[in-house]
C-alpha cells in the first residue's frame, strides 16, 4: 500500500503526519523542536518542489509513505489521484490524505516566515509551536487512516 499525505508546502503537516505514520515521532506527547528538525524534509523544502511526491519511508508492514506539497490545489488532488487510481484499477493500493484541515494559523504564519520569506528566526520557533498544537489532531488522523487500512 502507498500512503500519500499532502499539504500546501509539503514540508510541515504532511511531513509530520508521514513521520507519525512511520513511527518516527512519539505519539504520547508533542515532539520537541529537535525531534521535528530531525525529520527528513521538515521545514527544509525549497519552493520549487511543489507537486513532487517525496518518499518518506517504509513501515514495518511494507507500506510506503510519501509527502507532497500541492500549493492551492486543495482537496481536489484527492479526487484527481484517486480518480486516476480507479481508472487503472489500483485504487485499493493507495491512500491519499489531505492534512490541510489540521493546519492552524500559527503554523501558517511560521511556515510563511520560514519557507517563503526565509526568516528562520522567529519563523521556525513559531512554526514548531503551531505544529505542536496541531500534533494531537495529526496523530488522530493517522490513527484513523491506519484503522481504515486494516
Amino acid at each position, binding site marked *: 500500500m502507498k500512503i*500519500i499525505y499532502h499539504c500546501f508546502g509539503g514540508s510541515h503537516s504532511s511531513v509530520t503526519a508521514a513521520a507519525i505514520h512511520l513511527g518516527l515521532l512519539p505519539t504520547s506527547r508533542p515532539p520537541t523542536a529537535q525531534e521535528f528538525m530531525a525529520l527528513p524534509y521538515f521545514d527544509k523544502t525549497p519552493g520549487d518542489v511543489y507537486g513532487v*511526491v517525496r518518499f518518506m519511508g517504509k513501515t514495518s508492514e511494507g507500506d510506503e509513505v510519501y509527502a507532497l506539497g500541492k500549493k492551492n490545489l486543495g482537496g*481536489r488532488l484527492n*479526487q484527481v489521484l484517486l480518480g*486516476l487510481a480507479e481508472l487503472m484499477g489500483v485504487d485499493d493500493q493507495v491512500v491519499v490524505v489531505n492534512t490541510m484541515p489540521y493546519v492552524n494559523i500559527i503554523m501558517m504564519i511560521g511556515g510563511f516566515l520560514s519557507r517563503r520569506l526565509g526568516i528562520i528566526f522567529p519563523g521556525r520557533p513559531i512554526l514548531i509551536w503551531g505544529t505542536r498544537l496541531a500534533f494531537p489532531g495529526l496523530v488522530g488522523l493517522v490513527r484513523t487512516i491506519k484503522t481504515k487500512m486494516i
Partner: protein
Amino acid sequence: MIIVLAGTTAVHHTLVAAHLYLNTITEPDFGRLEYYCDMSFDYSGYPLYIGRDINGHQVYTLGLGRLIEVGCRAIHDFKQIMAIDSSRLLVKEVRIPSELDIWAASKASRIPLGVGSIINRLISDHIIAREFPFIKMETARLHEQVASLQGDGARQMAG
C-alpha cells in the same frame, strides 16, 4: 491505453481537444458538445469520460485548476510510484495561451440565476474559437504521442 487530457478545467479546451482527437468535431462548433462549459462536471475533480478512439483507447478530460504544472508533476510522480507507464496511462497537458482566462471565466459560473453560466459560456466560446488552432496543434501532438507509444508497445510484443 487510457488517455487523459489535463488542463485548467475538464469542460473547456480540454473537452474540445478530446473531441478533436476523437474526430467528433472538426470545426469550432462547441455548442453541441456534451458537458461543454458545464462546471458541475468539473468540480468533482474526477476524470471525465469522453469516448473511445478507433483503437479502443478510452479518452478522459481532467481539470486541475490554475496550478496545472503542480498537478501534472504530482500525477507524473504518482504514476511512477504506482508503476503505471505511459503505454497504460497517457496524461497529456493541453496548454493554450489564454487558459487562465478560461479558468477565470469558469469561476464566474458560480454567480447565481444563470448569469454566471452565460458569462462563462460567452468568454469561453470567444477564447476557444480564437485559440482553436492551438488546440488542434495539441491534438496533433497527442496523435503522434499515441502512435509512438503504440509503436513501442508493438515492438516490445514482437521482441
